[in-house]
């Protein structure tokens, strides 16, 4: 029973949602939105489990004085600062409005961390292309050439280098041809494959053939 009922729930819910796609009539037409609200509610309760787990793992480290335990302590402290400020000192559900202590923590601490982490990509893009774009074999050579042309076509330098060629062979035009023809074709093949893969995976989940997410008895 510990597995049968969940399998039944997944199957029924899945079938209903597939059918509702084709039916605008109530209650089907809005079912998707309602279920996505329900998901949000489950998600919002489940985050208590995640947060408790984070505190437990970090707390263990501090308690056992494992390597780097002071940093675990900082995780716990900054978590609680954010939570206490967000729950009690930022005007309830208006917690994100400009000027609240919560939004100030967001602007001054959270947001620069996010932005810099994101910007590290500029460096990693460089090191990844240095290593990956070597003409080791046919596939790698094609990868390299496509990247090379598109990268150059995106900056004025590319056109400056190819200025002596006819207009259609200017680097920026070559780059946009690559984007609009072979790149598009490959992209479409990948997308169609993904569509088929999702249908099949979804169906396996609805039928209960794929059930490892339910765990054992």
């Amino acid at each position: 029973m510990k597995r049968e009922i969940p399998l039944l729930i997944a199957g029924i819910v899945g079938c209903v949602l597939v059918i509702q796609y084709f039916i605008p009539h109530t209650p089907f037409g809005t079912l998707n939105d309602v279920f996505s609200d329900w998901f949000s509610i489950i998600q919002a309760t489940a985050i208590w489990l995640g947060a408790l787990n984070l505190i437990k793992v970090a707390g263990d480290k501090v308690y056992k004085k494992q390597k780097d335990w002071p940093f675990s302590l900082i995780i716990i402290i900054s978590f609680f600062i954010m939570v206490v400020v967000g729950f009690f000192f930022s005007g309830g559900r208006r917690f994100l409005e400009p000027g609240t202590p919560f939004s100030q923590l967001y602007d001054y601490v959270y947001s620069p961390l996010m932005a810099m982490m994101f910007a590290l990509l500029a460096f990693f893009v460089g090191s990844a292309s240095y290593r990956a774009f070597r003409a080791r074999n046919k596939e790698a050579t094609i990868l390299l050439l496509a990247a090379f042309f598109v990268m150059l076509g995106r900056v004025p330098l590319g056109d400056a280098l190819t200025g002596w060629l006819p207009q259609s062979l200017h680097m920026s035009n070559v780059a946009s041809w690559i984007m609009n023809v072979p790149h598009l074709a490959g992209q479409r093949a990948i997308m169609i494959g993904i569509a088929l893969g999702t249908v099949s995976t979804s169906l396996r989940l609805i039928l209960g053939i794929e059930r490892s997410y339910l765990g054992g008895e």
Partner: protein
Amino acid sequence: MSTFGIWIGAILTLGILSFLYKDNPFYKLCEAIFLGISAGYWFVSLFWQNLVPKLFDNLGVTKLVGFQADDGALQNLFGRGQYDERIWYLVAGVLGVMMLMRLVPKAGWISRWPLAFVVGTTAGVYLTRYLASNALDQINSTLKDFVAIGQPGFLSGMNFNYLLVLIGVLAGLTYFYFSKEHKGITGGAARIGIYFIMVTFGASFGYTVMSRMSLLIGRLDFLYREWLHLIR
């Protein structure tokens, strides 16, 4: 932004940047702050943005416990005797509580019910979601622009490009064929397919470089201009 805020931002920015050189205590500090702050942010946000409006407001719990809010399903149902469809949100509340039962070792198995609901919903939604935009629409756009024979532009470069796209799509699809050995015609087509896919990857990569550089430019601008006032 206040000077104080800019200084904090700049210090944290440098901390993350220092990871490029190597792992160090400064980065560890920023990482720990980042983990704690962001986990706390999501914890608070999900409460105020999901739980309160979607569960407590709809049911009327917010008003019941004394906060200012509109009437919810409970008030309508028991106060006025009117049916209110929002009462169904109670089911979601129950599913949420079942999820929390994982904290009780003996009753943890009940959390599989909400899990099954979530998986069922996702499967149901995705079964149709990609089929329209990723398959049918793509077939449509691959075919729709072809110029028919005898029409002006039949022998144009554009029409040739459409044909090339078609060939690429066909070859690419053959690459994804699982139940046939990639030999003979299938093998040849699959090989051409992987070439097209490689162009796709290379081009996407090259294409993204610019926006990634822009991100870093934005950060350097923050450091040099707003923090150090080195440039105007």
